[in-house]
């Protein structure tokens, strides 16, 4: 009894045993046929009962479930219909067919289970980069601790060759890390004191000491895992359509089956038995499972494939939408350009301050700001100090940010401004022409006097920055065009002359400069309003202050912004690697995934419809229906797995590639 119970519970064993019995039975039938002893019951019955046993083993759980559901008056389900089809076959003496229906149904179900488990495992293995212990510096000693118990600000020691347990900033040591598991970037990245390192990366060759930036729950790795879990819950139109379709599929097949059984014999006078057999064929294909599974399976693999390339897509809906991208809008800085502004020179207009004083003043005004200008100035300051120059910051009070314009602050009775052309306009200054290929901010000073109308604003200097176009940009934009993206646009807060020059050189269709954040939004809204049916508009930003644009675009893409909560929340796609090439790659993955899902749908539907018609004309019979049903499941699954071909997720390379690199 126990053996039988185990047999029925273990899908694989059940299938193997039933299939073996089926083969033995088939050989038996063949021998009977060859020896011409079809009429001898003594030989015939034992052989046929082998099929009956196979039927019982394979079909027990289906029959039981069908009965359970029937008790609740639920008969519109595939368990009941499969039971009906196979019992019908038994009733008309087709025992081998009855056994085959159940065996192949179970094979189909089992294949689906394997497909789900395999794809789940290959993706979770890729993301299973968590480290169970780390070395922390406490009271001057190094102790082992669970990363979950480590607090922000503690110093951890990361030995060479081990995985980085928590997001941290290097305080001692320099070396190389391998971020490929997170970013898909296979080249090692050089890191030095002050650099941030992400959990999940591999420290390659030296010991690093680093200050912890985030707890386990806030770490990059955990976020990625959470995002990819969440992605499976966001469904695209196709997936929703197919599951709605599945709801009607079974009833429609049942109605067809009833019509098949009743109508033709009435009109043509064919024997009922002929049409009863054809009816059973329809019941055999009454399970829509292959059809319904193939879409989420394809999308899941597509999302997984993207994540191996450092592209985190937040759901199947995003894949569908991005596959039809018609317009891609770039926020220039940090996407088209590197976003690493470089101070090329300071043009002074007065004798009031020397160059180094102007620099220090600018730095003091931008103190505490996260703006790119501020970052550039800080880098520049480090450089100056490393050359032995001293940067002495003047004391500035009442620092105030002027959004979209710049900053202002006070020193004694002087008010200082640092900002763009818009700010100059506001305070009534005319800025002299400067090199048009460079971005510019200026510094001005207003002397407060007793009589307000006497106070005069003096333009002190222009700071000229270079925002370099990424080396890869021209090539990538061309590629996007080749992929069929109709319109490329670039909206920027940078000065018009710079935007124009860069856009012309890159062949960008539409560009606007000197925009405030709300202007960029307005232009983006216009693009969205102008798009074609079923087309989408994508917005690419660096994740700094562009959350509104990321969320209103059909597909908001944040580049290298996993660290920013608001960007991750607002975006539909987060690029872990700071490379523009991830965008055409994401486009290709989205299209490929969509294409395979559609292939599966048409294949599954086509085959099922074919069976209906063949049965109608009495061609093929039950065997054709059985093989069409399980065949389509297997083909759809195999087809879905082709999405990951050649990637880290490819199961054929699973041993060496996906797992080999990640053993700890």
């Amino acid at each position, binding site marked *: 009894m126990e053996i039988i119970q185990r047999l029925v519970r273990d899908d694989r064993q059940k299938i193997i045993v039933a299939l073996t019995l089926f083969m033995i039975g088939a050989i038996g039938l063949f021998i009977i046929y060859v020896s011409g002893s079809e009429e001898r019951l003594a030989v015939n019955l034992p052989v046929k009962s082998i099929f009956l046993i196979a039927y019982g083993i394979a079909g027990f*759980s289906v029959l039981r*479930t069908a009965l*359970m*559901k029937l008790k*609740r008056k*639920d008969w519109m389900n*595939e368990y009941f219909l499969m039971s009906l089809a196979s019992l019908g076959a038994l009733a008309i003496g087709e025992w081998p067919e009855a056994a085959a229906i159940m065996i192949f149904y179970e094979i189909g*179900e089992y294949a*689906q*289970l394997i*497909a*789900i488990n395999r*794809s*789940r495992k290959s993706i979770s293995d890729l993301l299973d980069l968590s480290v169970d212990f780390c070395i922390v510096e406490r009271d001057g000693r190094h102790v082992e601790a669970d990363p979950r118990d480590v607090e922000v600000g503690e110093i951890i020691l990361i030995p060479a060759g081990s995985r980085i347990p928590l997001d941290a900033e290097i305080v001692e040591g320099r070396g190389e890390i391998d971020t490929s598991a997170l970013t898909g970037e296979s080249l090692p990245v050089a890191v030095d004191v002050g650099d941030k390192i992400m959990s999940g990366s591999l420290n390659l060759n030296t010991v690093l000491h680093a200050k912890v930036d985030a707890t386990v729950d806030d770490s990059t790795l955990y976020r990625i895992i959470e995002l990819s*879990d*969440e992605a*499976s*819950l*966001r*469904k695209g139109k196709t997936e929703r359509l197919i*599951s*709605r379709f*599945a*709801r009607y599929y079974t009833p429609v097949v049942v109605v067809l089956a009833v019509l098949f059984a009743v109508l033709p014999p009435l009109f043509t006078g064919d024997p009922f038995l002929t049409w009863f057999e054809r009816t059973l064929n329809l019941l055999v294909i009454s*399970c*829509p*499972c292959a059809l*319904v*599974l193939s*879409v*989420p*399976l394809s999308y*899941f693999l597509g999302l997984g494939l993207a994540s191996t390339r450092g592209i985190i897509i937040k759901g199947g809906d995003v894949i569908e939408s991005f596959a039809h991208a018609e317009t891609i809008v770039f926020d220039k800085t940090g996407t088209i350009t590197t976003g690493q502004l470089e101070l090329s020179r300071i043009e002074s207009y007065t004798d009031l301050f020397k160059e180094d004083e102007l620099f220090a003043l600018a730095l003091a005004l931008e103190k505490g700001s996260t703006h790119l200008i501020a970052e550039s100035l800080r880098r520049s300051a480090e450089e100056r100090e490393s050359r032995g120059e001293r940067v002495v910051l003047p004391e500035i009070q009442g620092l105030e940010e002027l959004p979209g314009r710049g900053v202002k602050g006070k020193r004694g009775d002087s008010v200082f401004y640092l900002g763009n052309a818009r700010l100059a306009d506001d305070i009534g200054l005319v800025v002299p022409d400067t090199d048009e290929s460079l971005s510019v901010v200026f510094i001005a000073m207003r002397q407060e006097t007793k009589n307000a109308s006497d106070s005069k604003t003096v333009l002190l200097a222009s700071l000229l920055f270079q925002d370099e176009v990424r080396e890869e940009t021209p090539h990538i934009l061309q590629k996007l065009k080749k992929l069929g993206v109709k319109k490329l646009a670039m909206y920027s807060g940078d000065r018009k002359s710079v935007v124009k020059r860069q856009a012309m050189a890159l062949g960008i269709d539409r560009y606007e400069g000197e925009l405030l954040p709300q202007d960029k939004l307005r232009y983006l809204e216009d693009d969205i309003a102008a798009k074609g049916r079923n087309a989408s508009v994508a917005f690419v930003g660096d994740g700094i202050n562009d959350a509104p644009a990321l969320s209103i675009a059909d597909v908001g893409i944040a580049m290298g912004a996993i660290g920013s909560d608001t960007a991750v929340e607002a975006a539909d796609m987060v690029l872990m690697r700071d490379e523009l090439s991830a965008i055409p790659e994401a486009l290709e993955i989205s299209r490929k995934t969509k294409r395979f899902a559609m292939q599966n749908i048409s294949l599954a539907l086509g085959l099922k419809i074919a069976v209906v018609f063949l049965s109608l004309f009495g061609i093929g019979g039950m065997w054709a229906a059985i093989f069409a049903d399980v065949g389509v499941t297997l083909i759809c699954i195999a087809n879905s797995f082709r999405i990951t071909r050649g990637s880290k997720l490819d199961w054929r390379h699973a041993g060496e590639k996906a797992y080999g690199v990640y053993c700890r």
Partner: protein
Amino acid sequence: MRTLRLRFTGTACAACCAKIEDEIRKLNGVGDVSISVMTGLVKIKLDPEKKESILNESKAIFDRIEPSAKLQI
């Protein structure tokens, strides 16, 4: 409305998951629900006051539609 994440095991039937999703969505106090057959995740937006009954009914729906599937609460 609060969002709740649960896990389930024991089924590879995508059509059943879609059916279960439909049934849970109809429950009183459920804002939205999404079930993934691929990851075995269930995400329910629900009225916190009715949490207990929604969870029990969801469990029953799983049992009824796909007896082999188990919702973990």
